[in-house]
């Protein structure tokens, strides 16, 4: 286990985080645990945006909830501003939540249906700053509503009266009203239409720029991620495949999975589409509770060897980033030689 980081270290440090779910028993003993997140480590610097990408079932949301301690990790530590969250008591953790906030995928479902916008946005204030007077609170709510592009006149309306994009702005306002250091956005735009999605993405980009918050941006959509991330973490079956600067990963992916993922993203270019090869995977995602010894991607990897199936590759430095592959940078069939 590493030492507790000092103040100069990153805002968020996650080390060896694992979240496993027990799955009850069968007649023949306990079922294997579902390894939703397995031994994930990363840092997040102040003002930086780290995107976590992966397909459904890759454990992205579980990772977010493990970082925020909404789920109890099976093992591993999370440091926020040098404070280890696992060591906090319930009450201390509750207080510490002021510094980290969550934005949800389904904007309307994340708002309490019987409360007005004002009540929703001011709840965090009431919780952490009970000394504020009603007028001060109202003012703060109005400020933050304006900041996310909502009219303060809407404060007495209920969530069901808003469209998805507006509701997501309310959710963002609720997350921002405490001025947190860390913002975790769990697929914040995947439920929205393209035109609204761009509005919310721009809003998040503005927030990042003007408020210097650090952001964990979780998404399955590589094109969305492209527009917001500084760094990128590729997750597959709960394990880190590749982590590094977004730009360099997009330009030169090194892990076979990242390559497959990037090649599969549809591009808005009609010319030359016939020549573009998309790498097919030979099977569907295996169950995250299945036993495996080697690399989780080995069962679908086009270049897997017996070594891959037997031995989990360690996350090692390769060309300015970290890759968990025995053969980093290996060329796949149909891929242009770099």
């Amino acid at each position, binding site marked *: 286990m590493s030492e507790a980081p000092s103040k100069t270290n990153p805002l968020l440090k996650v080390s060896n985080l694992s979240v496993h779910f027990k799955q009850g028993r069968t007649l023949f003993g306990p079922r294997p645990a579902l390894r939703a997140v397995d031994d994930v480590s990363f840092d997040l610097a102040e003002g930086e945006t780290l995107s976590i990408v992966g397909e459904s079932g890759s454990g992205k949301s579980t990772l977010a909830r493990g970082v925020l301690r909404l789920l109890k990790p099976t093992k591993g530590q999370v440091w926020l501003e040098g404070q280890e969250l696992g060591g906090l008591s319930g009450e201390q953790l509750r207080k510490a939540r002021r510094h980290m906030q969550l934005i949800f995928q389904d904007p309307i479902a994340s708002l309490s249906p019987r409360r007005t916008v004002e009540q929703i946005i001011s709840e965090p204030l009431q919780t952490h700053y009970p000394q504020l007077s009603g007028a001060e609170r109202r003012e703060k709510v109005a400020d933050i509503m304006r900041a996310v592009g909502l009219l303060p006149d809407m404060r007495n309306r209920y969530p069901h009266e808003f469209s998805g994009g507006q509701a997501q702005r309310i959710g963002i306002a609720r997350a921002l009203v405490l001025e947190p250091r860390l913002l975790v956005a769990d697929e914040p735009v995947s439920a929205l239409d*393209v035109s609204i999605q*761009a509005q919310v993405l721009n809003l998040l980009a503005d927030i990042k720029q003007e408020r210097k918050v650090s952001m964990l941006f979780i998404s399955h959509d590589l094109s969305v991620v492209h527009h917001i991330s500084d760094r990128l973490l590729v997750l597959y079956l709960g394990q880190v495949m590749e982590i590094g600067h977004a730009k360099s990963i997009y330009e030169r992916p090194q892990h076979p999975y990242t390559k497959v993922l990037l090649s599969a993203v*549809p591009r808005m270019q009609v010319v030359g589409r016939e020549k573009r090869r998309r790498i*097919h995977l030979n099977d569907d995602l295996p169950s995250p509770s299945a036993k495996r010894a080697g690399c989780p991607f080995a069962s679908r990897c086009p270049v897997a060897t017996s070594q891959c199936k037997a031995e989990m590759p360690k996350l090692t430095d390769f060309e300015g980033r970290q890759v968990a592959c025995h053969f980093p940078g290996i060329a796949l069939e149909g891929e242009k030689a770099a």
Partner: protein
Amino acid sequence: MSNAILSLRDLTIHFKTPDGMVKAVNGVTLDLQEQEILGIVGESGSGKSQTWMAPMGLLADNATVTGQAVFDGQNLLALKPQELNKIRGTKISMVFQDPMTCLNPYLSIAVQMMEGLRFHDPSISKREAEKRCVAMLERVAIPDASRRFRQYPHELSGGMRQRLMIAMALLNDPQVLIADEPTTALDVTIQAQILDILRELQRERGMSIVLITHDLGVVAETCDRVAVMYGGRVQEAATAQGLFESPQHPYTIALMQATPRVEADAETQRLAAIPGQPPNMRVPPPGCAFFPRCPVAIKGTCDVSPPPLEARRDQHFCACYKSDAQQILKEAEHV
């Protein structure tokens, strides 16, 4: 056009709801050509799915449909149910968005595949039907097809279910396949596979495919022609290449600029968001549906009556009063 296989003529679909009439589709005229993949792009509420459900007779009971959908010289909208049943499933098939709920969980795959085949042609023996189904499953790359054939839908993964849906739709060798967001519920890696299968099958069988999607990228990768829908109308229709190289309608242009793309070079580049909200189809704007959000709208013209869909050049149609929207927006971008 002479080689149109399915023609929609002034199709209008309204839904009666307790809170008022929803004017989902307002006069769509569109041709599906032989042997092409026609992409229909639009955001939710643009009426893109309803437009293609209507000729299949799959709209909810509270819908009123006017206009025509001509297939094989017959107006599908005027057919009796029995007559329509002779066409759907045999000559026109459909694949839906959510493969999870589109298969009956109580019936085996065998029953669900064979029923469409054997109902339309009772002369096919059970064994023959089985053989054809298994061969079809193998064609869509379902491993271990003869075992899968005996299983139930819940025993298959999402990608496999969607491939099964496609196999089921193609059993009767249809001339038209309508695919309604076939990859939306799936991961990108699976999406790529499904799109490739669709493209291959289209070429192999020479059928026409309507691909309904909200994803411009999917359209660019797959389709020959594209129609962009907004507010229950076709706003722009062109060949895929024509549309992506020189979009004419302000909405298409804005949509393209708002779509995040992997291939864009600038990292964390700002997207050009479309301001405002999509129109409420209970009270659609009197003129162009895009008027309230349009950067080049002309007050007094665009908000009075909807612009007609007119040819801008060969095979490129656009419904906009501003013929120079493209230039204006390009210049604005550079400033």
